[in-house]
């Protein structure tokens, strides 16, 4: 390769940009749109039909942000991240006080042209602020002790608590998982890891008794034995499993899924979008989507390894964790391996705030790839 060894700035545009990353995201976009069209165009779903077009608009917005992020050096984020983080925490506080209540959750701020969900953008803010703080922590040796962990933990716990209060346990959990992954990546002392595991085990029953709301307890109980109350709390879980299973090997075909089209599946266009896919495209379609995600993670890791600096590597880990944990919880829930938690599947579920956040995150990764070392 003639370009090998050249200075970063001397490589041309097409060689610098990571085209594989873009192709994989596009691939998920196309699958996502086909699937969303089916999910929103059943015989009785006039009310959600327009969401398909809205999603296309979000997607176009998402790609715009993606490319803006790609061409800006990600270092600039470092300079303003404190302001953004604090603004986002402010938005969360505002949401808790005055936000729009939809389906029992107070998660949105009504901006008239769309409903903004601050907890969604918080995920990205958290990644960026942790990357900045963890930059100065030493990754070698024994790892971070309590003193070094104190500040990062505060940064995680504040938005976590505000999101739990909405209540939106799913999103709060995502914040915890993403933050935890980044801390783990930088290295935590073994004694502290052990301490966390023990505390977790002790805190679980206490939280169960006092911290959880009834419906949250029910979800877990339902997960453990779904057939106890198939009419009520187990309904979603059972319907989703029937939908996935009835897709068999090749699926029922585009717009032919009875479970989704005839509205047995709840939240078809958001949390249970993967059920729609599994029902209509079967084992083959389900696996293809999982593999596409796997490729995406692989490429993200490659980019992280070649990143110009530690900051870039940390951001890449954060964004990858963001997508992975969403996929993990969402797909796990849909196929009956995890309790029902309202977490969307990135790039496939309908949702403006989520789409913009995901694309902004991928844009950062793309920016890191754009400025990586090539040897």
């Amino acid at each position, binding site marked *: 390769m003639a370009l090998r060894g050249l200075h970063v700035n001397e490589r041309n545009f097409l060689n610098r940009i990571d085209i594989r990353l873009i192709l994989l995201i596009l691939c998920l976009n196309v699958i996502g749109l086909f699937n969303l069209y089916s999910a929103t165009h*059943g015989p009785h779903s006039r009310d959600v039909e327009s969401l398909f077009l809205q999603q296309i608009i979000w997607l176009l917005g998402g790609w715009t942000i993606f490319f803006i992020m790609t061409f800006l050096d990600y270092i600039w984020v470092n300079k303003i991240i404190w302001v953004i983080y604090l603004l986002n925490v402010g938005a969360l506080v505002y949401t808790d006080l005055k936000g729009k209540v939809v389906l029992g959750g107070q998660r949105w701020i009504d901006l008239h042209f769309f409903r903004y969900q601050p907890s969604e953008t918080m995920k990205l803010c958290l990644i960026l602020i942790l990357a900045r703080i963890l930059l100065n922590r030493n990754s070698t040796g024994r790892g971070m002790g309590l003193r070094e962990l104190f500040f990062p933990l505060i940064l995680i716990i504040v938005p976590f608590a505000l999101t739990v209060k909405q209540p939106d346990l799913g999103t709060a959990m995502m914040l915890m998982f993403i933050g935890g992954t980044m801390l783990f990546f930088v290295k935590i002392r073994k004694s502290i890891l052990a301490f966390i595991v023990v505390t977790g085990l002790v805190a679980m029953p206490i939280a169960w008794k006092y911290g959880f709301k009834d419906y949250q307890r029910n979800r877990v109980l339902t997960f453990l034995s779904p057939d106890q109350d198939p009419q009520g709390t187990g309904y979603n879980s059972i319907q989703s499993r029937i939908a996935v*299973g009835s897709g068999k090997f090749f699926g029922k075909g585009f717009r032919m899924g*009875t479970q989704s*089209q*005839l509205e*047995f599946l709840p939240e078809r266009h958001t949390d249970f979008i993967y059920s729609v896919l599994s029902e209509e495209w079967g084992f083959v379609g389900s696996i293809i989507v*999982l593999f596409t995600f796997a490729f995406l993670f*692989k490429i993200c890791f490659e980019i992280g390894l070649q990143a110009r600096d*530690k900051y870039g590597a940390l951001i890449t880990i954060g964004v990858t964790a963001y997508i992975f944990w969403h996929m993990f919880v969402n797909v*796990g829930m849909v196929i009956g391996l995890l309790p029902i938690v309202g977490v969307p599947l990135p790039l496939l579920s309908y949702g403006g705030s989520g789409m913009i956040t995901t694309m902004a995150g991928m844009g950062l990764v793309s920016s890191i790839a754009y400025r990586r070392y090539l040897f």
Partner: protein
Amino acid sequence: MSEYISNPDEAREFQSRYKNLSIFIVVTLVIFVLRLAWLQVIQGSELRQFSEKNRIKQNKIAAPRGLILDRDGKALIENLPGFEVVISPQYIEDMKQLAEVVGPVLGLEPAKVIEKIQKNKRVNGPFALIRLKDNLSREEVFRLKRVRLDTPGLEIRESIVRHYPLGEDGAQLFGYVGEISKNEIAKLNEKYRSEIIFEQGDIVGKSGLEEYLERKIRGTDGVSYIQVDAHGRETVTEIPNIYGEKIKDLDSVHGNSAFLTIDRDIQEAAYKSFTNLNRIGALVAMKSNGEILAWLNAPSFDPNYFATDIPVRIWNKLTSDPFKPLRNKVIQDHFSPGSTFKPLVAVAALQDKVITDKTVLNAPGRFFFGGRWYHNHNKNGEGLITVYDALERSSNVFFYQLGIKLGIDKMYNYISLLGLGSRTQIEMTREAPGRLPSSEWKKSIRGEEWQPGENLSTAIGQGYVAATPLQMALAYNTIATEGKVVKPFLVKKVVDHDGKVLFERFPEVLRDVTLPQPNGYKIDVDTFRIVKEALRRVTNGTRGTAKNLKIPGVQMAGKTGTAQVMSFTADQIYAKCESRPIHMRHHGWFVAWAPWDKPEITVAVLAQHSCHGNPGAAPIARDVIEAYFKKYHPDIIAEALKKGDKHAVQIMHVPAEGD
């Protein structure tokens, strides 16, 4: 920025951690894939059966639309029970067999049935119901019921057929219903956002009051849930049901009924008169307080055809008819008012003191102005006449002179008070605003100065002036009531199924033009009285243009008018009207009220291509007014007949000399 690459230990640490994370991801994905394989490959057949055997079918129970009744409670639109045949496409096993069984029963080609099903699947998705035919005959129902069980997907349902007892009469007013189209779903859902959700298969009002009153008379659809097997047949399965038991059926709520101000007797009298004379055009009759009594357009269509599938042949005929049977000309089209505009000009001239009722002007057979001749329809002219004579005989030359004296802007300022040039805001969609020109209007629309010659044509109701029949009725009603501009309305009240009144409208005077109006103008009672007397002479004077039309015991006041459809040279105008092809003949107008001094009813009739206001339009107005008095004041007519008021009984149809 610390460059971690420069720290080899850190780089090595990170590499091992990437490895750990990768392992975690791979393990997760392997578990997911195994789980998917378990559900979809190993348990797949079982779960597929589960999804097929246990389906809840949502059956929509369409709510009956509310009735539309006249002011006495007589039905104008009602519901009849019927049957329809629908197909649930997902249960079809053998489309060809279905088409071959169902087609002959319904009188459809099997290929047509298949085409219809496939088109519906394409447009509305694979699970949307298809209404093959509604309003089935008894025989069709019987024959379909026999094949139903062997034909999965086929279903016979009870339905409601909208029935219009008056048929063609007033069809454009009442409108019709039909199955919602794909475009309408989006449009109506936007319009009635968060009030009604429209779905494919819904029956909605497509025009007229059916459309306008949609929200009020629609009702709320119910839902029934039944458990069906893979063929769409109702079943009970032995597997404990996980959906059914707790879902409750939802009954439909009957739509509210609307009482109109329309009087069915007068409506029918108007229709009879219109059809007897075989006229094309529009008619509106209103009480002097604004309540519309009758409203019709001709030619017309029978909305009962529309309640079922409209045969393409009939639809094509309706849409290609040059006289536009689907159009509601009473408000949707505007026309030159012709001489019916003269009384409004007279009001302006008298009020502006350009003339008084004693002013005598010379009205010869033609008039020279601005380098050309303007003609009177009576070539001999009328000689020296007052405004009374001018209106009685409909002198053009007299009004040419008023036009010159007033100028367009004064005409505009006075006549706009009477409601011309603006919408009446009646409860109907797509109302035309009409057109009342002013010099400013011409400048802004055409970018040209107003020409003095245009004052002349405007003064006799030609040129730019255009009005809907309803606007003309309203303007004359204002003269009749000596200045009260009323709000015309059609819906008297809306009651729910238990008879509770949800909405009621009472007559309303929008403005009294004898008081100064926002534009600084007003019209005195005395002015109106002069014009009223003049219009009384039109039907009662010795030389009135409608002197042949009488009602025993009731004196009408009104004005004939002729509106040119296209321009002709002076000597062509009247000589050859009847001999021209029909679409080139003039429109005849007659606008009248009665009794002339204490008005109760105002009628505007437009008889298109009938050549003359009288006998083109005027006899119809007379018949409507007579029907009104026969119903509401039979004593007056009876008394007059007893007295042997010969003059009054005499009804002649003499062709009028002029207009």
